[in-house]
């Protein structure tokens, strides 16, 4: 098992669009208007439509599963949404290994907006099998 504390996960950059937000709204079944209706979003004091928190979680999930591959399985995955993100701006997912104990590995993951603000913070634990 070639995993060490401090190791960084390969960066994953996403380019969310309003089209993707509509696509995600349909796939998840979350039709809250702040994700596709600009006027509604502004009426609740947002700058415009924003990404679903769970879409950002899915991006971070991909960061972890791309890195993990078939070397193990995901045991816990936690995300906390600290800021809003708007479509049309790149969203960069990053992470690093924070703890290795036997076959148990802990990761810190986060999503950054184009100004390098960490708008989503998370952790994951995985059990390595190889």
């Amino acid at each position, binding site marked *: 098992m070639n995993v060490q504390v401090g190791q960084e996960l390969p960066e994953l950059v*996403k380019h969310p669009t309003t089209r*993707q937000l509509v*696509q*995600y709204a*349909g*796939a*998840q*079944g*979350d039709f*809250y208007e*702040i994700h596709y209706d600009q006027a509604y979003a502004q009426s*609740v*004091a*947002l700058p415009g439509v924003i990404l*679903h*928190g*769970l*879409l950002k*979680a*899915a*991006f971070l*999930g*991909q960061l*972890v*599963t*791309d890195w993990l591959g078939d070397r193990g*399985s*995901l*045991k*816990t*995955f*936690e*995300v*906390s*949404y600290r800021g809003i993100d708007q479509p049309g701006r790149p969203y960069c997912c990053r992470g690093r290994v924070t703890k290795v104990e036997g076959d148990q590995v802990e990761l810190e993951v986060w999503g950054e907006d184009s100004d390098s603000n960490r708008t989503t913070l998370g952790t994951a634990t995985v059990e390595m099998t190889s």
Partner: protein
Amino acid sequence: MSATVSVVHRLRARIGVVAPPTEATVEAGHLKRFAEAIGDPNTRWTSEAPPTFLIALAPVSLHLAEAEEYGKGWLNGGNRFEYFEPVKVGDRITATGRVADVYEKTGSSGSLLFIIFETDYVNQHGRTVARLRGTAIRR
């Protein structure tokens, strides 16, 4: 202000309330649409659920109408998933949600209402495949 206090009190009375279970089968077409929507091309997701899929599969109908008397809108504060077994195409999943906690926090930019939901996902063999804890915020 007293109206707001009363909303918090009424919602706190809902702690422990369990929503009617919802059931759904993991379908290949839904997995495909979900993977496309999140932009994840991993072929593994043609037969297995990606990490956040369960929320899309079986939305828990725990609508707390009175929460909408508080603030202007909803925000998702966070989600915590715990996984016990993989979820595959054809699995029949039953989701049971409950209100785990309700509290108010006052910060520099005003007051926020936090509602914590917990959902258990059980497969057709009666085995719990995952547990979700979600934080919904009224602002």
